[in-house]
């Protein structure tokens, strides 16, 4: 007779085998490719990759755009999430629905829409000309600005949703308490809201950063070959040059970047928790407003 332990294992087996066969094995093989050469195991492919000035430019651009998109999403996300949680139940539901709406539209369609919006005759340029900021249309398409806008629009909903659920769990009277105690709005945000919603920020930040790093369609369409990112470079190496060694190196870099971002965000959140919880507890207790 099976023990409950072996029964559990047997139940997990099909799923585990499936994952091993279609995910772990191919990914492992691809990543191993980056360490293989005719003479044995080596990190030569990594050295080669980073020796190219062009690859370094693309690496930094990917990191920079990922960080900027995450930062912008956090700033806009907090504002939007505050607005949403301050509303009544039904209005809140409608607004969250609106935030989710773009996620239901194909990213390809959304990105193509940006080509029209950001074009020479698009609404952005027409608006800029109408208010007299420019005489000549500004070229947005195929620039880092276009990729930034596209990625921000694509991933902002994930940040807003994470922050809405974090803010919903914020004790209702924490903010009034801090205000009564004389904290400025900035202090309220930095010392009360941020520490108490850090989980939402970590989740949202990881989703946005990882998404921005690994997005393909947006940088491919809005940036093109003039604004290559690691993901578009990976595609180019495979489809144009059949160069799986470089592809493996890029895949590994992307994985490492994603994990590092998550770790870093967790660290930041943990450090803040350590530094802040003590004071907040003391203050809220003193004000007699604990739940």
């Amino acid at each position, binding site marked *: 007779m*099976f023990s409950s332990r*072996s029964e559990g*294992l*047997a139940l997990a*087996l*099909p799923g585990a*085998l499936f994952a091993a*066969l279609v995910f772990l094995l191919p990914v492992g093989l691809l990543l191993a490719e980056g360490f293989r050469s005719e003479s044995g195991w080596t990190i030569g492919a990594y050295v080669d990759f980073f020796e*190219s000035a*062009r690859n370094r*430019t693309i690496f930094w651009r990917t990191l920079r755009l990922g960080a900027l998109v995450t930062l912008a999403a956090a700033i806009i996300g907090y504002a939007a999430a505050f607005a949403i949680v301050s509303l009544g139940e039904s209005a809140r539901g409608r607004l969250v629905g609106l935030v989710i709406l773009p996620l239901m539209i194909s990213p390809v369609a959304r990105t*193509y829409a940006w*080509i*029209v919006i950001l*074009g*020479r*005759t*698009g609404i952005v340029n027409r608006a800029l000309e109408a208010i007299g900021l420019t005489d000549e249309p500004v*070229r947005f*398409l*195929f620039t880092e600005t276009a990729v930034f806008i596209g990625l921000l629009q694509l991933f902002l909903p994930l940040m807003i949703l994470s922050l809405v659920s974090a803010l919903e769990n914020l004790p209702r009277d924490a903010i009034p308490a801090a205000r009564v105690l004389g904290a400025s709005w900035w202090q309220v945000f930095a010392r009360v809201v941020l520490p108490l919603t850090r989980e939402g920020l970590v989740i949202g930040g990881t989703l946005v950063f990882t998404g921005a790093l690994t997005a393909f369609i947006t940088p491919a*369409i809005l940036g*093109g*070959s*003039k604004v*290559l990112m690691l993901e578009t470079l990976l595609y*180019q190496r*495979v*489809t*144009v*040059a*059949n160069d799986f060694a470089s592809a493996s190196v890029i895949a590994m870099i992307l994985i490492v970047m994603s994990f590092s971002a998550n770790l870093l965000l967790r660290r930041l959140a943990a450090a803040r928790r350590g530094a802040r919880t003590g004071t907040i507890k003391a203050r809220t207790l003193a004000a007699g407003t604990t739940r």
Partner: protein
Amino acid sequence: MSRAVPATALALAAPLLLGTGAAAAEGRLVISVYGFAQDEFKALVYDPFEALCECELVVETGNSVERLAKLEARKDDPEIDMAVMSTHDALAASRAGITQPIDVARLSNHAKLYDIAKDPLGDHLGIGYTFYATSIAYRSDKVEIESWGDLFKPELAGRVAFPNVTTNQGPPALHMLGKAMGDDGAELAAPIAAVAERRDDIVTFYERSSQVAQLMQQEEILAAPIGRFAWSAYTKMDLPMAWATPSEGQTGGMNVMILTEGAKNEDLAYEFMDYWLSTEIQTALAEALIDSPANAEVSVDEATAANLTYGQETVESLDLLSPSVILDNREGWLERWNAEVAQ
């Protein structure tokens, strides 16, 4: 438990094991083609051929890199009998020992082909079945294009797209640009340097023809070198579009049929190639605006011809890069391009 594991593993692996066991059946032709217009190819070529040969036609599609890699991987036991690819990919395949010379005596329609299609690789390693011109599509109300060098006219600064060096249009366009500059060395050093110098004036280095059509449609760009196969989209735009006939001539590319070394269904492959090259099929593909005819006996009306690379005069004016020049230099071009143009 210990017995359950191998049993489950076997059950999961069984379909995989069985899948590889099927041997090439009799009367079964396997071809490898580009992924585009497959519905039309099925209706105009594949289905009628299957009815004619009473055999099964298996079609594999994909981009050239994937298909070439697959052919090479199965070199010793080829599953594909016949493939179509660009002249330079075909030359690469022949250098890799994947292909064998085609016995043109077995192709009744071979004599009907334009001269440039009869033996573009030498030794009949490939037979041209279609080609296309590459020139500059431009807005005739905004700019005049009489030379490849006109792409860098001041009025086109910030309003022109250029094919990326990794596309099939890239190297031929650079070659013509070099010709216009009076330096048509195979290294393409002068034209790549010229493009690098004007990098900021070029809106994008495009990778797909469809992208250029959209940029032209929304007046983002006023001119771009494109392949004739994409031209019909421009004629449908509500804009004054023109196809340039530059003083240096037009360039372009050609696709060829190849026969794999050790093909298991050689007779069927010959039958199929001859069928595809026939006046009837080449006419049907031309009228559907899918492939320009390599068969000189094909005759189409003026409206159709306007959308194709068609006619003796046009064909003779094409200045095509030789496949060996492409194959021997493309690594160098890419390196030079990446160092100077792409950042």
